[in-house]
């Protein structure tokens, strides 16, 4: 096979690298989540392209069709997509609350949180 024969895998690799770069290099949390989404999507494409059977039709029982694409990867990736949506939702919810607590979602402005920057909410009890 030629290089172009692996077209889908090139797409997967490029998307994956863009996503990882976004997660690592961007300070903005929303951009990090977008990068994470891209990264996951690339894996979805990897999985889905594994299920393609050359010349296969949609996996629905009907007359005159002998070769089906493999439906299993689709089912699995549906689950993975749901997981991805849930992660995005939790990530965005955290970003909203970080914005409310710190006033920013830029990593650079948050500084390192090694030191205490506020008292615990618990009151002292004797």
């Amino acid at each position, binding site marked *: 096979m030629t290089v172009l024969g692996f077209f889908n895998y090139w797409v997967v690799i490029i998307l994956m690298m863009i996503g990882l770069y976004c997660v690592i290099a961007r300070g903005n949390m929303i951009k990090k989540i977008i990068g994470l989404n891209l990264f996951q999507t690339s894996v979805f494409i990897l999985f889905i392209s594994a299920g393609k059977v050359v010349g296969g039709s949609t996996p*629905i029982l009907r007359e005159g069709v002998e070769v089906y694409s493999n439906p299993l990867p689709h089912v699995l990736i*549906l689950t993975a997509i749901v997981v991805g949506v849930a992660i995005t*939702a939790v990530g965005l*919810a955290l970003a*909203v609350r970080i914005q409310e607590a710190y006033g920013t979602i830029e990593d650079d402005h948050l500084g390192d949180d090694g030191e205490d920057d506020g008292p615990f909410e618990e009151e002292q009890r004797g």
Partner: protein
Amino acid sequence: MRENGILRIVARFLIPLIMLFGLYIQFHGEYSPGGGFQAGVVVAAGWILFALIYGLEAALKVIPERVMYVLAAFGVLLYAITGLMGVILGGRYLDFYPLLPGEHAAQQFGIITVEFGVGVTVATVVMLIFTYFARRKSEWEALSEEEPE
């Protein structure tokens, strides 16, 4: 966005169709592509379109937040209890054969019930996620409007 006539009319037109399509996917899930996940998301999308155009308050009148929350847990429980029925009637967990006498009928009954649970949970959870984010924004706007005074 309520003032925009085009949006309002198109939405009034589209929302029933979206809901219908959602139900179609839901109830054809056991023998053709479809099922609870997809149907739930489609139904929720219809509701979100409604909320975007008529406002969150109107949308929450259609289905209050508490109801969504209860329904989300109900869907999970429906799934779990259908699975348990298989055990109680002498099979394995999620085993549908003991549920009804006919093999095909039993499988279809089991899958439809389980997928209904999935659909309800997915739809309500997606709505809940939207509600929480949307309400944050309106609270935020209310806060920032108060601040300058």
